[in-house]
């Protein structure tokens, strides 16, 4: 068996600021994971469909535009609807503290805000994988 942790990094909505998404994608790559990057301006449907086709273990969503309270839960809902709620969700971006509990309720295992060291995200993924096994 030659199993790799597979992660999809997606950017939904109209926000084109992808430095954070690319930074995390590279960090996860350097931690030995296979990272599928969708590019910017994806619909929640496109992200959910891609996650299923790519059979990833995690989906990480990055958003800096403020539309997270709409777009993040939508990705979670679509994954559930498509019988893929086993895929672990995490989010990142400019997200006010008070919004985090709501996003966690919507199905996000973690929300990372600006300034989070990449190692923290890597640690989160490894821990989740251990819990799963």
């Amino acid at each position, binding site marked *: 068996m030659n199993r790799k942790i597979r992660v999809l990094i997606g950017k939904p909505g109209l926000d084109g600021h992808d430095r954070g998404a690319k930074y995390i994608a590279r960090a996860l790559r*350097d931690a030995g994971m296979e*990272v599928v*990057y969708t590019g910017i301006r994806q619909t929640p449907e496109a992200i959910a*469909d891609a996650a*299923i*086709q790519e059979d990833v273990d995690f989906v990480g969503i990055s958003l800096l535009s403020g539309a997270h309270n709409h777009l993040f839960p939508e990705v979670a809902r679509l994954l559930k609807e498509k019988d893929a709620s086993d895929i672990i969700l995490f989010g990142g971006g400019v997200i006010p503290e008070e919004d985090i509990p709501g996003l966690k309720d919507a199905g996000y295992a973690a929300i990372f805000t600006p300034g989070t060291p990449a190692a923290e995200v890597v640690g989160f993924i490894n821990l989740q994988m251990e819990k799963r096994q």
Partner: protein
Amino acid sequence: MTSTADIIRDIGEGSIRAIARALSRVENGSPDSADILDVLFGKQQGFTLGITGPPGAGKSTLVNRMITRYRTTDNSVGVIAVDPSSPFTGGALLGDRIRMQSHASDPKVFIRSMGSRGHLGGLSGATRDASCVLSAAGYSPVIIETVGVGQAEVEIADLAHITLLVLVPGLGDDVQSMKAGIMEIGDIIVLNKADRNGIDQLESYVKASLEFMPADLKKPEVIRISAVSGEGLEDLWGAIDRLVAAQTGEEKTARSAVKTLNGILTENGIIISEKLLEIEYNGRKAAEELILAGQLSPYAIGKKLLERAEGMFKHNGSK
């Protein structure tokens, strides 16, 4: 974990999740992957298109165009996009989907990104198996885009029914196109970025180098396109259609069966060798240490393993 039989049944019913999971199983070499492939092998239909060429040649952009083309005739299109894995960490950044975004939520387009996972030749070791899964699930064509390393991708020609080599101006002189192997693998040589300077020179280099091809090999067609503007694409589609029409179903099946066996033999060879290393030297690591300590050469180990295997076959009473 879902059982093998369930996965196969769900693939037959067109379940995207089942197809995706079967792809992971064959890619990971999970214990039931041979059982899954054994059933799916005979269900393959349609044809496979290989796309290869150096990084930045526009392969993904061309694949995006191709998906559009085959969607207009209502084919379900499968794409396997292979990107390099780091030889140091094993990680990979799989970014080919970015150029295929226009098909991101089309339910009849299945795009799968794969890391090469240390396999040489521009293809992931499991690409052949993944292609089998998508083809058996009803996707035709299955388009395979290889890692763009440029000079060692002869494997794709073995795997795909039709192979396109994508070249662009500005990547080197005529000596590059004289290097053996790479020019011979394309059934069609696509000269992309035809709007760029140097395209005439590239075409003359390529055509000149094809002049020297052995007379018994079929010369590839050379077609100029711009995958971004769409220029020349109609010519390219026509050339692909002619090649598809020229290959009969039996030819394709026979070819793919023989090539698949070749691949399996190579992989089995590695598995058997690992077992022999275990018996003879307590595993690969210990054997490597013997080499590093200067006690044995790699050749001595190889010879010993073969002798051991022969001894085992004799012992079992076979010829």
